[in-house]
């Protein structure tokens, strides 16, 4: 055995041992790779957005295993803590619309009194863009129909939007009656469906936190399918109240692979809670 061999063997032994220690201490990482399916297209060449998109691919705050159990285990197995912790975590999102300074106090007051001020807690529609991405899309060459159900905590019910993609222009804003969903016109930019919406009322919020808006709000949603994944993002322009446009957090949805899967039904909304609230705890 030569001295060089000794050095090599000692070095190899050291590297192996060091690697072993590092591997033992390193966090386990999933080695699974997401298979990327090809994006199906309709006869007009546009991506096929048809389907039920209820895969919920990226909710950072919910574990994929039993969320109720893990939530209740979080602090003292208490339901109060479950609500309090959930509210705090939801509100930790640092992506906030940048309001003009004259509205900062208003936002805080609306937020503090969110239990009574938030329209979606009183069975009102969430409106665009708070209603988020559609749960189901029905696509034709000239029109797309978006179908929604409300989450259990917000009982705004089943909702729909019919979005023309026939090249028409918006109705002049002054001729529109402000509504929760506004007037949406779609167009294709490459493989991305762009939905441009104006003509809102000023009743809905953009999100929890008192994020109100004016009737001059303009929302641009972008939907892009890649394989069996649909990415939705929305940008809010409201120069009356915002210092700059606000891009909401991107949402990524998975196509439901079950061809027989049905659109579930929203629970009917009957407001019974507000009169029983004794604190301003967020929910």
């Amino acid at each position, binding site marked *: 055995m030569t001295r060089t061999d000794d050095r090599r063997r000692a070095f190899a032994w*050291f590297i192996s041992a060091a690697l072993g220690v590092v591997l033992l201490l390193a966090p386990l990482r999933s080695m699974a790779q997401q298979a990327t399916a090809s994006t199906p297209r309709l006869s007009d060449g546009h991506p096929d957005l048809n389907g039920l998109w209820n895969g919920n691919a990226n909710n950072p705050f919910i574990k994929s295993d039993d969320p109720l159990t893990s939530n209740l285990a*979080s602090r003292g197995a208490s339901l109060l803590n479950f609500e309090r912790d959930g509210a705090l975590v939801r*509100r930790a999102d640092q992506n906030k619309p940048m309001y003009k300074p004259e509205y900062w106090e208003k936002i*805080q007051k609306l937020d503090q009194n969110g239990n009574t001020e938030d329209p979606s807690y009183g069975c009102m529609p969430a409106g665009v863009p708070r209603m988020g991405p559609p749960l189901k899309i029905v696509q034709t060459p000239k029109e797309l129909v978006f179908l929604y159900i409300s989450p259990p905590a917000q009982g705004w019910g089943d909702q729909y939007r019919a979005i023309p993609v026939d090249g028409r222009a918006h109705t002049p804003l002054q001729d529109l009656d402000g509504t929760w969903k506004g007037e949406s016109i779609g167009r294709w930019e490459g493989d991305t469906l762009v939905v441009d919406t104006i003509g809102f009322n000023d009743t809905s919020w953009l999100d929890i936190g008192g994020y109100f808006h004016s009737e001059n709000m303009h929302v641009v949603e972008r939907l892009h399918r890649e394989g069996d994944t649909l990415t939705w993002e929305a940008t809010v322009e409201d120069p009356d109240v915002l210092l700059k446009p606000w891009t909401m957090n991107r949402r990524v949805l998975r196509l439901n692979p079950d061809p027989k899967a049905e659109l579930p039904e929203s629970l009917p909304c009957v407001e019974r809670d507000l009169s029983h609230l004794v604190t301003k705890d967020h929910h």
Partner: protein
Amino acid sequence: MGKETSHMNRIRTGALMMLATLAASCAHAQDALATIKAAEYALGMIRGPQRIDAINTMEVWGAGANYNFGQAYHPDGPWPAFKITYHASYSYRTPAMRVDITRSNPDGPLQGGGLPLAAPQRQIQVVNGQYAWNESVPGAGFIPGSTATPAPAALNDRLLQLWTTPHGVLKAAERVANDAKVSKEGAATVVTFPLTGSLAGVTVKMTLNAKNQVEKVETKSDNPVLGDVVTETTYSDYKDLGEIPTDVLFPSHILQKQGGFPVLDLTVTKVDANNPYVVFPVPEVVEQAPRTPPPGKVETTKIADGVYYFTGGTHHSVAVEFGKYVALIECPFSEERTLAVIAAVKSAIPGKPIRFAINTHHHFDHSSGLRACAAEGATIVAPSADKAYYEKVWAQPHTIHPDALAKSGKKPVIEAVDEKRVISDGKQTIELYRLQGTDHAEGMLIAYLPKEKVLVEADVYTPAPAGAPPAPPTKEMLNLYDNIQRLKLDVKQITPIHGRLVTIDDFKKAVGKN
């Protein structure tokens, strides 16, 4: 063969030692992280199934006192106090902070720099990432008629404030848990760790109490007068102070000391830890301002034969030429400023050393360049009350930012002036007098040049810009007038350390004695 085996054994031993060090280091880091996480849990920061830190924004309201650091009346006394109402907004992920304070006069003595206030004074200090600025109202710069003033020099101080708040210090510690060290001091747990980014070089010592709450945070920074100075913040009586309960705990009492005396004593009355809506948009004027403040230029004005006035910053200096030397009145603001002034003196009066550096008083904005003057070889001529103080504080280490005096190894020579001192070579004369009756700084000096009939004073009279509407005279202005009368000084011109040159008639008009 034996030699080869021995060599291999040495390699194996070395490798084992390295592995042991690596394992110990990992265990050490895990120990620090566990300690920090336990403290975060104790303060209510950790929430949800994934045990994430759920605190991003926070608002704090309170009342108490803040203190003018470096502006004590007695040189070795406490910093002067102001009553305050306090509202701070924190955003840890940005990171950003807005501290909105309204100061008013204290109930106690009105002595020291900054006192008394003519009216309550609102100060809004903001930091966001790499920008620091002051606002006239929250959101200034985006509201017509409001003013946002860049304050790049304050960036690190403000970031340090944010990262030494109870929740901020834990977040900062967690980020560098691998470099944190945990030890015990009695029943308390101490975590020591370095800050990063623009605060690199600052080490934080965080003390946790038996409940794992942050009890004390200590940092060291450089001060041109005090050298390495400790800022110590004590947090006590933790509670959920939210109108909407969150179970996030915040101290009801905050006491911060710098240089051994309080700079903030706050009773916290309300906290919104529920991630409230707080935002910190950066105004365009702040974005476009230079990140590093431009070096202060020195403008030289000859105001009489052999008498030069050095302006161009907030604090001015005066040089008087004698036959073989120069006397410089005031080495102010900072070492950098004073070195620039010294260069300007050498340019205006070449070939003569600065033998005397006259210091009007001990306030840090007027004494922060004295060590640079001492390093230049000048004898420091200071109020008698300040001599012992300078001897004490200048002996303190300057390891964080070794200045010219620390590098020179020179022992400064300080000469005390009690009531009067005359510097003269027969042709040129400076008379120094103790300003009696002032509440600004004990024993402070004024300088009088009898030949030129020029009076040099600091802080007690700052002439308003030309054309400014007249303001009522302050007590200090009236006291200066009384001193001029008492000393029977035949003053023609006032050469202030702040403001602009004025005649004695201007001064008499300002104090209503014309």
